[in-house]
């Protein structure tokens, strides 16, 4: 597992650690996590889960440049023979802190850079709850293709629901995903006011 923080422009990805147990437990039990698998039943169990992550997984806390933790994301299921991996455990836990900033998109951009550019994977995949419309729309806009529907794959909030299986190939990432991610990151730089001209007007 990567032991160092990955630096971005608006956010950093730092490795998940035991001291994140309470924060991530609270996130996993918030309304925003309703489309994720049920998390640990206690902070202690969450700490044990964090401690038991295998070295083959990359689990990160998303931090603003100020150091404020706003979410989590992971790259798991890395298969170096078949050169694929899974992105997931993606959750913005502090939505208010990321309004107006491209924190979520830059976090995923850094995960893709790790997967495709550093680890040399050629494919990223993952599942999304079928009712998680915003996430499905987001992932598809950013290049993911729907590869299948897993019927009654998830038991969430007391009932079964389907999951969509999404996948992204490295060529699609470079052609579609990266330009759109770069646009969204750039949108976060733009002020809501007239840009100064070269003459300073």
């Amino acid at each position, binding site marked *: 597992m990567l032991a160092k923080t990955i630096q971005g422009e608006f956010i950093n990805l730092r490795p998940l650690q035991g001291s994140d147990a309470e924060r991530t437990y609270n996130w996993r039990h918030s*309304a925003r996590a309703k489309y994720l698998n049920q998390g640990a039943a206690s902070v202690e169990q969450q700490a044990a889960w964090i401690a038991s992550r295998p070295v083959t997984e990359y689990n990160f806390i998303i931090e603003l440049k100020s150091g404020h933790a706003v979410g989590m994301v992971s790259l798991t299921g890395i298969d170096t023979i078949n050169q694929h991996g899974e992105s997931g455990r993606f959750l*913005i836990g502090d*939505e208010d802190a*990321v*309004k*107006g*900033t*491209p*924190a*979520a*998109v830059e976090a995923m951009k850094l995960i893709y850079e790790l997967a495709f550019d550093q680890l040399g994977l050629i494919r990223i995949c993952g599942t999304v709850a079928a009712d998680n*419309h*915003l*996430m499905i*729309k*987001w992932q598809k*806009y*950013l290049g993911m293709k729907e590869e299948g529907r897993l019927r009654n794959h998830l038991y969430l909030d007391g009932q079964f629901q389907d999951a969509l299986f999404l996948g992204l190939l490295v060529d699609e990432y470079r052609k579609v995903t990266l330009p*759109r991610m770069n*646009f*969204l990151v*750039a*949108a*976060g730089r*733009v*002020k*809501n*006011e*007239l*840009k100064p001209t070269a003459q300073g007007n």
Partner: protein
Amino acid sequence: MLNKDAVHAIIFQALANVNDERGPDEQLDISPATILFGTDAVLDSLSLVSVIVDVEAAVSEVSGRDVVLTDDRAMSQEVSPFSDVGSLTSYILLLLSEPV
């Protein structure tokens, strides 16, 4: 040709679609002055993408021409098209005013 009110309606519907996915305590205030992205914005990048996708699809369907909101031209505008509902409306009307 779409006019200002029609484009406003499309953007409002896109924001209402975001509200459909949010809890009662997380509803966006929707108005021409709603700040979309940047300082004091109401959207995170997840919701911004939803608005972009829905607005592009609706404008393209109603106008009969492809409209792309996320290219270099959009980023080169003096005021970001995603500053607020008004600036996005103005940018869409600009695109639609040009020859195909």
